[in-house]
């Protein structure tokens, strides 16, 4: 027989039929069903195959800990693998597919693994597949991956939106069962800001599965009444379908809200999931307890289910587990199920109670056998019978459903997320939360409190105490009498742990999801892997999506018995966030695709775009790379033209993305003198100076020019890449190292549009819009002043500096005027042959002049390495890097130094990254003398040119070398040379 829907009862809406499919087969359920309850109601016992042995598996739980009923939901980009059917709300059109089966659920070739099980025991990965080693990659690993399964991710983009948000409250209540509801009500009435989260779609927790009455109301009606009051309170926020997944420092809790995972087509305007970060002054953990399975042979056969889950299916969903039901219990809770079954006309075939002295307050008709165990269950794809063992005698009982009630484990995960260790309690046969929690309290079953009345009272009382700590006037909420709660009998016999069930013949599973059975744990102990952390890795117990929610405590109990010690001495593995799996979508939130990182566009971006620029991403910036013209067939053709045009006529390049920092204050000069390695105290007003910034270890950090605009006002430029880093560094120097200096810093990178105008015609062109005299006498090399433009319509900053080696200026204007000034310059320059040029041409021009960038300033280069030895002051009392720049290793004459490199044959070429070998030397690591840091085709030289860092490079100009590209196995005969390829006398700069 199979499970079936009862004629009446449950919290489902029998008028609302929902259609869904399971492995393509159309089925129906009701609104209010979970996917699991709907499958059971349709008689679907077999819902999946196990991970390793591919054994048939059925639904085991009704909640978050489900290890078996993992399914793939949805299709295409909305495919969600490893969805727990017990947590998935049924919706119309839901498509569910079973996993870990091939070719089909009913006939699975992988089940042959069961016959191989002697070879697949604990540690089989490490034993079986070790040898021969070459087979691992090609044979073993692909085979294991295919066979092991679990769900498969979709390879198409998720079309839905995810978001992240913050929330703040006085009291966070985690779990809306009896304790949580009482706490939230107490706090809500006291006026505190309350957030109540619960992972299920409906609040109530176990109350929704209860037949007890509270204050005269059926438990679910009591929940509805309480929720109505909470919803009416403005200071209470209720987050359902929201799992609290972690407790972090600073009283921050992580929670995932499944906003639209219960609908077929999510509304586009809302996210499907929300990742909450909740900052709570105080938090109350009311997460309840997890029922433990019992470890007997065949305890994984479909039809074997947790007793509490069976109550939930019966009472909440109106689904009977079968017609002939047995109950195997080690505590009183199994009798609550018996009473519920009988109320539905199903008298249990037998109640097997492992306690010889059991005396439950049970008045039903079922036959009770005490001091007995179920040693084995029989059946293939469905349970058919059980073997009951008592006093050495066995009895076979035909059943189609079996409930396991192995006691309860408080769900203390969050309480352990910040490093506290769970404490074993012999009295409770359970691990309890760490005792020294600050900011988090526990109430209800998570604190081992049993019974509805006690949980309600404890929730109200604990909330009151927390509220009083926060200076609220709170009164514990009170509720009417609780009737019919079987667990609330006075002095319930405590659960007596039953770790090792005697007489077991079949496979007794401990971890259902990972197919770890009792024999595996015994083997781990025998082979010396009995420590809980080792046993976990050796057997895989407690791994994968459920992280041992059902299995860990049983595994610890069995390890304890096998080793002859207490569970307290075995201890637990570490509880880490997240409590349940969190989707990558929720973690990424909106930060994917175009929104993965911000985009920075220069104020001249649109100007460049109109001129047909090709853009390149550099960091967050989009820089104009080159400006192709009609008829040009390659980027090189465009770049060569731009380079030649700059040196022959003039070019305009957008350099707005260079970092710009305003430095003001009476001590600004002194400050600059300390952050740069070269002297800055005597820089005159109206002048720019090239500056070198070191790190404290003596290596170069960054370079750029700094100009003195007035007595106490400087503007510094940095490289594009290090703009933010230099700003942070300067702030560190100003605030931490030398707070006594009067200096103020402000980034103005975004405030200025800056353009380089370079080439012999640059002055001519600029003079058409600049009022001031730009003659070489009036505005010489390194002049830096504010100028007026277009009459006196606009003011800008003009710097006579050059990266290209040509007569060049950089003009900065307020960002909003950038485009019109660039257009005016292009118009004025047209008769003189001006053309725009991009960063590719800029790169060629600077390599031709031997100017370094971060290709050379690579964190391992000193100033002397790059030919800037004279820029490291020997007279300044202090500057960043001074103390360590003279270390022996940094002044070693064998160090790699900046040098130019050319191919001997101009028709041959080499690439950046190629290594330099002495002529005739073999291509080995030992013979490596350095490498090419920058290279480009120089239209002026007529060949590829490069800059390189080579051992003793500065004194080897003219030496023939071999340029070796080990990746492409290319050898190019070359020659070291002066790194300045064009105008070595710098005559063009000063015209």
């Amino acid at each position: 027989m199979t499970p079936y829907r009862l004629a009446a009862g449950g919290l489902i809406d029998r008028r609302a039929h929902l259609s869904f499919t399971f492995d393509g087969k159309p089925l129906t359920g009701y609104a209010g069903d979970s996917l699991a309850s709907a499958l059971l109601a349709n008689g679907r016992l077999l819902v999946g195959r196990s991970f390793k042995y591919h054994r048939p598996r059925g639904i085991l739980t009704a909640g978050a800990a489900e290890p078996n009923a993992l399914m793939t939901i949805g299709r295409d980009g909305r495919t969600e693998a490893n969805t727990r059917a017990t947590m998935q709300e049924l919706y119309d059109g839901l498509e569910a597919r079973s996993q870990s089966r091939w070719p089909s659920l009913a006939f699975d070739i992988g089940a042959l693994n069961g016959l191989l099980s002697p070879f697949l025991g604990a540690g089989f990965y490490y034993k079986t597949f070790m040898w021969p080693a070459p087979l691992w990659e090609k044979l073993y690993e692909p085979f294991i991956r295919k066979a092991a399964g679990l769900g498969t991710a979709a390879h198409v983009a998720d079309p839905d939106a995810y978001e992240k948000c913050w929330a703040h409250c006085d009291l966070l209540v985690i779990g809306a069962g009896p304790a949580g509801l009482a706490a939230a009500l107490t706090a809500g009435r006291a006026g505190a800001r309350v957030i109540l989260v619960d992972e299920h779609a409906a609040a109530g927790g176990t109350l929704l599965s209860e037949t007890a009455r509270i204050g005269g109301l059926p438990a679910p009606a009591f929940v509805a009444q309480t929720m109505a009051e909470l919803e009416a309170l403005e200071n209470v926020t209720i987050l359902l379908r929201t799992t609290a997944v972690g407790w972090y420092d600073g009283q921050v809790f992580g929670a995932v809200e499944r906003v639209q995972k219960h609908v077929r087509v999510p509304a586009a305007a809302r996210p499907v999931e929300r990742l909450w970060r909740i900052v709570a002054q105080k938090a109350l953990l009311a997460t309840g307890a997890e029922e433990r399975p019992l470890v007997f042979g065949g305890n994984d056969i479909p039809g074997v289910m947790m007793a509490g889950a069976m109550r939930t299916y019966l009472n909440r969903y109106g689904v009977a587990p079968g017609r002939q039901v047995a109950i195997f219990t080690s505590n009183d809770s199994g009798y609550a199920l018996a009473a519920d079954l009988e109320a539905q006309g199903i008298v249990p075939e037998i109640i097997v109670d492992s306690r010889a002295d059991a005396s439950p307050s049970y008045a039903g008709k079922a036959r009770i056998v005490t001091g007995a165990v179920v040693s084995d269950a029989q059946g293939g794809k469905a349970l058919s019978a059980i073997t009951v063992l008592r006093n050495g005698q066995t009895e076979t009982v035909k059943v189609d459903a079996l409930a396991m009630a192995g006691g309860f484990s408080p769900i203390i995960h969050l309480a352990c997320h910040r490093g506290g260790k769970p404490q074993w309690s012999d009295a409770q046969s359970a691990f309890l939360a760490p005792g020294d929690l600050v900011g988090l309290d526990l109430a209800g079953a998570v604190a081992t409190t049993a019974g509805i009345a006690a949980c309600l009272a404890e929730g109200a009382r604990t909330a009151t105490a927390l509220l009083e700590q926060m200076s609220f006037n709170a009164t514990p909420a009170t509720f009417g009498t609780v009737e019919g709660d079987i667990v609330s009998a006075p002095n319930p016999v405590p659960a007596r742990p039953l770790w090792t069930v005697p007489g077991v013949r079949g496979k007794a599973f401990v971890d259902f999801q990972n197919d770890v059975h009792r024999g595996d744990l015994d083997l781990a102990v025998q082979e010396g892997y009995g420590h809980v952390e080792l046993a976990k890795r050796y057997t895989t117990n407690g791994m994968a999506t459920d992280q041992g929610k059902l299995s860990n405590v049983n595994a610890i109990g069995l390890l304890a018995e096998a080793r002859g010690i207490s569970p307290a001495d075995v201890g637990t593995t570490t509880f880490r966030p997240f409590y349940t799996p969190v989707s990558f979508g929720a973690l990424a939130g909106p930060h994917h695709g175009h929104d993965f990182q911000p985009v920075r566009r220069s104020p001249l971006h649109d100007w460049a775009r109109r001129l047909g620029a090709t853009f390149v991403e550099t960091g967050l910036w989009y820089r104009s790379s080159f400006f192709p013209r009609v008829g040009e067939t390659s980027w090189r053709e465009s770049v060569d033209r731009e380079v030649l045009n700059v040196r022959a006529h003039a070019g305009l390049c957008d350099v707005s993305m260079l970092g710009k920092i305003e430095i003001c204050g009476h001590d600004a000069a002194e400050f600059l003198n300390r952050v740069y390695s070269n002297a800055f105290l005597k820089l005159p007003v109206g002048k720019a100076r090239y500056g070198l910034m070191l790190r404290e270890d003596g290596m170069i950090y960054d370079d750029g020019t700094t100009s003195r605009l007035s007595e106490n006002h400087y503007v510094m430029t940095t490289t594009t890449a290090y703009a933010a880093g230099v700003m942070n560094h300067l702030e560190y120097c100003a605030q931490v190292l030398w707070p006594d200096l009067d200096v103020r810093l402000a980034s103005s990178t975004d405030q200025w549009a800056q353009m380089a105008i370079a080439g012999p015609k640059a002055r001519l062109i600029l003079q058409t819009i600049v009022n001031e005299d730009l003659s070489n006498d009036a505005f010489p090399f390194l002049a830096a002043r504010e100028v007026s433009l277009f009459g006196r319509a606009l003011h800008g900053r003009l710097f006579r500096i050059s990266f290209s080696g040509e007569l060049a200026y950089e003009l900065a204007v307020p960002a909003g005027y950038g485009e019109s000034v660039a257009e005016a310059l292009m118009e004025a320059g047209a008769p003189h042959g001006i053309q725009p040029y991009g960063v590719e041409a800029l790169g060629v021009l600077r390599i031709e002049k031997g100017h370094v960038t971060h290709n050379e300033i690579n964190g391992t280069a000193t100033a002397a390495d790059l030919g800037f030895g004279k820029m490291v002051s020997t007279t300044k009392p202090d500057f960043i890097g001074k103390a360590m720049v003279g270390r022996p290793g940094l002044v070693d004459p064998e160090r790699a130094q900046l040098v130019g490199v050319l191919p001997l044959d101009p028709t041959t070429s080499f690439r950046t990254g190629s290594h330099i070998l002495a002529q005739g030397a073999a291509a080995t690591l030992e013979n490596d003398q350095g490498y090419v840091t920058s290279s480009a085709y120089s239209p002026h030289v007529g060949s590829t040119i490069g800059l390189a860092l080579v051992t003793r490079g500065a004194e080897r100009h003219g030496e023939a070398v071999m340029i070796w590209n080990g990746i492409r196995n290319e050898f190019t005969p070359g020659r070291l040379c002066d790194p300045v390829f064009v105008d070595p006398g710098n005559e063009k700069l000063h015209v």
Partner: protein
Amino acid sequence: MASLVPCPHCGARPKEEFTIRGAALARPRADAEPAAWMDYVYLRDNPRGRYEEHWHHTAGCRRWLVVTRDTATHEIAASRDASLDTVGVKRTEGARS
């Protein structure tokens, strides 16, 4: 996931707004022994427990802070503006701890 950092100027702010530099060490004098500089530049104690670090409120007030963080629990016990340490005079106005 995130913890909150108490900025003495801005209040509790998410850690994503901050940049962590590392141990809050005093810079040796320029003429200090090489060993002192080696310690400052390269050597870190990496203790278990409370540790003073320099944090920059990069996406906030842009002040450098001394943050006392527990390396085992990440709990932040205190934070103060770093300039208070080296300026000689303990300025307390405007600084909430």
